[in-house]
C-alpha cells in the first residue's frame, strides 16, 4: 500500500529533482567515510588472515591475493558493507521520517494536499539505489588497497605476490553479481526504513524503536535476498 503511494509521478517534478541531489549527498556521499575506513581495514585484515590460513607449500604464493579479492568482490563489499549501511542509512531514514511523523510534519504535508509518501520516500529510495553500486565498487577498490598496504608495509606477503593474486583468474561477472545484489539491498534498506519511519507513532522512544526495527528487519531481509540472489546467479 505504501509503495503504491511512493511509486507514482511526483506532484511537482522540480521538487523531486530538488530533493534528489540532497538525498544523494546525505545518504551516499556522507556514507563515504565509513565505507573508506571499514573497507581499508577489512581488506588489510583479510589479507593477513588469508595468509595465515593458506600457509601451505602446496598452495601458490599468490593465493592470498586471489582469495582476498574474491572474498571482497563476492561478499564483503556488497553484503557486509550493506549490512553496515543498513545501520547507518536505515536508522537515519527511519528516524528522520519518524520524527516528521510524530511532530505532525507529515500531517501538514497531507493537509496541504501533498502525497507525503511520494515526496519524502521516493527521493530517498532512488538516491540510495543510484549511489549504492558506486559505494560497493569503491569499497572493492579500497579493500584491495588495504590488502596492498599490508603487503607494502609488512612482510606478511610480498607486493608482487599480492598483485599477481588479485589479477589472477579475474572474473568480471563477480563484480556484476555484487552490483546486482547491492541494488536489491539498497532498495531493501531504504524502503524498510521508510516504512518503519512513516508508520511510527507516539514519541521519541517510539521513533527509536522504529529505527531499531528497521535496522533489524532490513538486515534479516538482506541475508535472505543474499541467499536468493546467490542461488540464482552463482549456483
Amino acid at each position: 500500500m505504501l509503495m503504491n503511494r511512493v511509486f507514482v509521478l511526483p506532484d511537482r517534478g522540480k521538487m523531486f529533482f530538488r530533493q534528489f541531489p540532497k538525498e544523494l549527498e546525505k545518504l551516499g556521499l556522507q556514507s563515504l567515510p565509513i565505507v573508506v575506513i571499514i573497507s581499508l581495514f577489512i581488506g588489510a585484515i583479510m589479507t593477513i588472515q588469508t595468509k595465515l590460513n593458506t600457509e601451505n607449500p602446496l598452495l601458490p604464493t599468490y593465493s592470498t591475493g586471489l582469495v582476498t579479492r574474491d572474498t571482497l568482490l563476492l561478499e564483503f563489499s556488497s553484503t557486509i558493507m550493506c549490512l553496515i549501511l543498513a545501520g547507518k542509512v536505515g536508522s537515519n531514514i527511519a528516524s528522520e521520517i519518524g520524527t516528521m511523523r510524530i511532530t505532525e510534519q507529515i500531517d501538514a504535508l497531507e493537509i496541504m494536499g501533498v502525497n507525503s509518501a511520494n515526496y519524502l520516500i521516493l527521493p530517498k529510495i532512488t538516491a540510495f539505489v543510484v549511489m549504492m553500486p558506486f559505494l560497493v565498487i569503491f569499497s572493492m577498490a579500497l579493500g584491495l588497497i588495504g590488502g596492498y598496504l599490508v603487503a607494502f608495509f609488512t612482510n606478511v606477503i610480498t607486493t608482487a605476490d599480492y598483485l599477481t593474486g588479485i589479477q589472477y583468474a579475474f572474473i568480471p561477472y563477480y563484480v556484476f553479481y555484487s552490483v546486482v545484489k547491492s541494488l536489491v539491498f539498497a532498495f531493501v534498506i531504504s524502503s524498510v526504513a521508510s516504512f518503519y519511519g512513516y508508520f511510527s507513532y507516539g514519541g521519541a522512544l517510539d521513533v527509536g524503536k522504529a529505527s531499531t526495527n528497521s535496522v533489524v528487519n532490513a538486515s534479516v531481509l538482506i541475508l535472505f535476498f543474499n541467499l536468493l540472489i546467490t542461488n540464482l546467479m552463482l549456483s
Partner: protein
Amino acid sequence: MIEVKNIDKSFDDNHVLKNISAVFETGKTNMIIGQSGSGKTVLMKSIIGLHRIDKGRIEYDGRNLPDMRMSEVRVLRREVGMLFQGSALFDSMSVLENVMFPLEMFSSDSKEEMLERAHICLKRVNLEEKSFELTPGEISGGMQKRVAIARAIALKPTYLFCDEPNSGLDPKTSLIIDQLIHEITEEFEITTIINSHDMNSVMEIGDNILFIENGEKAWQGNKEDIFHVDNKELNDFVFASDLFKKVKKVHQKKL
C-alpha cells in the same frame, strides 16, 4: 461554509463522536471547545479527512468529503490551511522556505511572484525580514506559530483549521495569535475552525462556539450567549476558574 451532518466515529468499541451536526460559518472564527477526551480533536481531524467517519456528511460548500476519491480530497486540501498544535514547521527548511513550500508545490506563479507572496504573508503575521533565513529551531514558539499561520495562508485558503493555537504560549503571545487568526479570518473571508480549551481565546474571538461533551454536541452559540446559557456541563467547563466566575457575575450585573 462547512456543514457537518449527523457524523459518527468509533475506534473499535470506543464510540467517540455521536451524531454531531453543526454549521461553521464563513468569515467567522468557529470554535470547538470541550474537556480533554471529549472528542474535539477527533471531530476536527474527521472534518479535515484525517479520520474516516463511520456515518454522516461533511460538506465543504456543498461538496461532501466522505464521497470524494483520494485525488479529489487532495485537490480540496489545497483550499485548506492548517495551524498545528506544535506548528509542524519543516525543520530542514528556513522560515521563508517553509512559507514558499506550498507555493512551490502548487502555484504556477514565477519564482519572483512566489517570493513576493511569501514576503507578504510573513509580513502580515508581523515577522521581521531578519528572521526569514532562520530555521524553526532558531525562533521562539510564538514566532513558530506566526510562521505556521503565514504558511497556512500562503495559498489563500478558503478554510483554515487551528488545533490548539495557543498551546505552550504565554498569555500575551496567545492574545496576539488569537487576534491575528481573527483578523485574517475576516480579512480573507475564510471559514476558520479552532480547536481550543483556552477560555481567554473563546471569550476573545469565539464568533461561533460548539461545545462537545462525551462525543456529543452539548451546545452551540456565540461568546455573548455563553453568559446566559443554562447548561451545567458548559458552565462547569467555561467558568471553572474564579476569574471567569467573576467575569460572569460582572457581565450579568451589567445586564
